[in-house]
């Protein structure tokens, strides 16, 4: 059996049986419940067209799901350093790339759980329209693309941090910095705004979702907006493939 599978299996056990995974998914579902309830009943929000309500829930699900996944990824290496458990792992013959891959795969199970948990909420809001199928495909494809890329970034930050607090703070700052532009109205209307959206893997992914859900664009029409999340996945993967032995070490310092 590939050794990354052994690492991933144990990490998955620790994540889900150790209680961190269920806690984060529970918090995620509470937030989504509140969102869905407000969308369906609040007098202000329920004037939203059904498509808009589904789009809003979809965007919140992706943002919060990615946040939960990044929180776990940010702990994956720096946390082990801090708890002094990384040394035993590094003393095994498992290649560093396999350690990184095993940790990435296990972390992404949290994203997968968030996608599954989102389904009933999307169904409640979009069950009587054709938008439901589209929303499910979008969260599974675009959401996963964004999640893999940003989880890779958080894992990279974790590998470069000696302190778990630093790793968590930097990862959350990165997410916040990427998320903030998605809340600004009419960002892509000027060429500068459009460029800022296109280079931001989260904003461009969200823009693609909105274009399909709200503006009823075709799947191909705004495909170029997915370049940024796809490049983030490619870049983080390449960094780990090439530099894993230098990144996953006992200390971040040059030792």
């Amino acid at each position, binding site marked *: 059996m590939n050794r990354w599978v052994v690492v991933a299996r144990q990490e998955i056990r*620790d994540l889900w049986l150790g209680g961190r995974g269920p806690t984060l998914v529970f918090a995620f579902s509470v937030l989504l419940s509140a969102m869905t309830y407000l969308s369906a009943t609040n007098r202000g929000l329920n004037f939203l067209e059904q498509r808009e309500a589904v789009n809003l829930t979809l965007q919140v699900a992706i943002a919060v799901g990615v946040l939960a996944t990044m929180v776990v990824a940010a702990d994956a290496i720096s946390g082990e350093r801090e708890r*002094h458990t990384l040394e035993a792992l590094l003393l095994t013959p498992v290649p560093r790339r396999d350690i990184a891959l095993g940790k990435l795969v296990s972390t992404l199970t949290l994203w997968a759980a968030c996608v599954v948990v989102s389904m009933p909420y999307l169904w409640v809001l979009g069950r009587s329209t054709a938008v439901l199928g589209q929303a499910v495909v979008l969260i599974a494809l675009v959401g996963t693309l964004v999640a893999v890329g940003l989880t890779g970034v958080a894992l990279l930050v974790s590998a470069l941090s000696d302190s778990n607090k630093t790793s968590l703070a930097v990862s959350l700052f990165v997410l916040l910095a990427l998320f903030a532009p998605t809340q600004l109205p009419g960002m892509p209307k000027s060429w500068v705004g459009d460029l800022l959206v296109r280079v931001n893997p989260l904003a461009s992914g969200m823009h693609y979702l909105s274009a399909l859900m709200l503006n009823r664009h075709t799947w191909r029409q705004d495909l170029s907006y997915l370049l940024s999340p796809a490049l983030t996945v490619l870049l983080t993967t390449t960094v780990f493939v090439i530099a894993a032995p230098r990144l996953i*070490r006992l200390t971040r310092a040059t030792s």
Partner: protein
Amino acid sequence: MVAIEAAGLSKRYRDRLAVDDLSFTAEPGEVLGLLGPNGAGKTTTIRLLTTLLRPSAGTFSVAGVPASEPGRLRQRIGVLPESAGYPGQQTGREYLLYHARLFGLPRTEARRIAEDLLDQVGLAERAGSRIATYSRGMRQRLGIARALVNDPAVVFLDEPTLGLDPAGQRQMLALVGEIALRRRATVVLSTHALAEVESACSTVLILDRGRALAAGTIADVTRSVGAHRLSEAFLALTEAGRP
């Protein structure tokens, strides 16, 4: 074939030389005591020989595997690091099973080895308990069991008795003796405690400020400085160059 061969090994951290031109050998089945005051370079030496750190200069081989093949080298060694951490939520059995699988053992074989080792280190009854509930001595014994899952040719133990009560220390030293005797493995035992070295080790390497001050059997090292006991020899060697 020698079990460990180091030649001109050095490790520099910016302007500080942690290990300076260290050369020594250890034979199969030998229990080598790595002695030195705080900051002597004992842990750095172990981290170099176990491929966790890259040397700034010099070469070495462990169990016949050169440093240029770290993956293959780690397959042949077992290590109990200084102040090792343990995942509190795993049970002792799970922990050993996981590490045996990381060394490439099939599941059934890994399970058998985990059970055998838990029995050997006296943790069979607590195998199903979470590590968070283990005492320090139990964790150290679990760490030794983990260091043996791959049936290593060379075992590195970094301060294995640190923080243990006298009974725990005696138990740990008995385990060290068993590893060398039954498994015919070379043991490198890093410690501050001279009494431990005298009771458990056949040879000794004394380090200070990264340099080897003396190496050989305890009798040879003691005699070389005209002392009667290892403790006298150790003090004579390590305090000679101090202001």
